[in-house]
């Protein structure tokens, strides 16, 4: 059992974008804050800080969560992926990122990294469902919209974002 006081920090270790991280965090630190302020992952955006807007979405073990409502101590032992982790070592973008660009689904860009992480989590979900299955399941447009309900965009009207998600999740083989 780990015990700690306000002044004391707590040791955690996790994988961030395939890199092992060991660090000490305050008991009340949020994942969003340590990602941005201590680990330099500024692609994860602080938006509403209330779990409404999804700008701070990151993946924990492949699933999308709001990093503004997630205690940093609970990252212990997990695999965390931020938008920075999607780029391949040679600098090429992930196909979700490419689809967002190709569809012109970015205006101010503030929601974009959260949106991409959410689309990535849909892809991860279907990959896990389709493991060793002959007839691969795919989401339909309504299901994609439902998956993206926790991500707000105040510029694009969503159409191009959903088009990009459809391209990756439905049209690509």
């Amino acid at each position: 059992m780990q015990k700690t006081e306000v002044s004391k920090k707590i040791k955690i270790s996790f994988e961030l974008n395939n890199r092992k991280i060991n660090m000490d965090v305050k008991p009340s630190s949020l994942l969003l804050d340590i990602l941005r302020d201590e680990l330099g992952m500024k692609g994860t955006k602080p938006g509403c800080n209330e779990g409404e807007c999804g700008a701070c979405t990151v993946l924990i073990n492949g699933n999308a969560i709001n990093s503004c409502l997630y205690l940093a101590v609970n990252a212990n032992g997990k695999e965390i992926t931020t938008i920075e982790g999607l780029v391949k070592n040679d600098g090429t973008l992930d196909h979700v990122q490419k689809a967002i660009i190709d569809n012109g689904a970015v205006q101010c860009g503030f929601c974009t990294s959260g949106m991409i992480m959410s689309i990535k989590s849909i892809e991860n979900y279907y990959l896990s469902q389709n493991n060793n299955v002959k007839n691969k399941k795919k989401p339909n447009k309504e299901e994609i919209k439902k998956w993206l309900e926790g991500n707000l965009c105040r510029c694009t009207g969503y159409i191009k974002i959903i088009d990009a998600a459809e391209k990756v999740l439905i049209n690509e083989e």
Partner: protein
Amino acid sequence: MNFNIEIPASKNELIELLSEYKNKKYRIGAGCTDLIMELRKKPEDDLTVINISQINDEDFNNIKLSNNKIVIGANTNVVKICTNNEVVTNFPTLKEAAQNLASNQIRQVATIGGNICTASPSGDLICALMALKANLEIIDFAGNKRSVSILEFYKGVRITDLKKSEFLSSIEIDLNKVNPKNMYSGFIKIGTRKSMECSVVSLAYHIQLNENYKVISAGLAFGASAPTVIFAYDACDFLINKNITELKNNEIDEFANHILKYASPIDDLRATAWYRKQVLFNISKSILEEFSKTN
């Protein structure tokens, strides 16, 4: 926001901690999606959060079938509830409430125990669990267990029967008496948008019928229109032994009035009391009207 933290790794460690903290200030946090918001708005001094999300216990974190009951561990996240086969087949009202709770990101982290113990008057899972007449299993600091019906668990706005040094361990729901095709079960949530919405009004219904459409068991509960989620006893009694396909318009009105009479909503930023009552009346009628249309 500043607090101490305790991170038990098992239920036994949690029980030890509750005993240690008997006379100290603490809050239990599971997914912490509500707790973080609350502590950010109203920080508390010298607070310890007992963070139960790292408890590694199969029963505490999952759903299982046991002796004609479905037992849901209090630490089960909402995603597991809306995708679990037993829940999907037997309790559509719970599945629909879970599916419409907040957003995917929050459903990954938020737990059923958190939703129950936060005791929001608009708690979506609470509403469905009331319609299902669920029982709550509670454990105290000495390891003693007790069971309480969710219908008797809520004492006021965000006040529950859970005493200091107790925690919610699991939720038990009796399997249906009838097979799923003779069940009429669902969850209606009214709000200004479909997602991320705190309900203006919600209504959960779970009705079991015999082969001739006669109601043999009914559970009806509504949210966001009283200090707690409310179970509409008289509306359930009204339906028993009635043929659900042969209800006349005046009977449907009478049924809706049996729900409405329990409502005591307030005006707030989401809706006025008048509007909530009107909507509750209309959706109450709609569940019976819809049944006649679709069967």
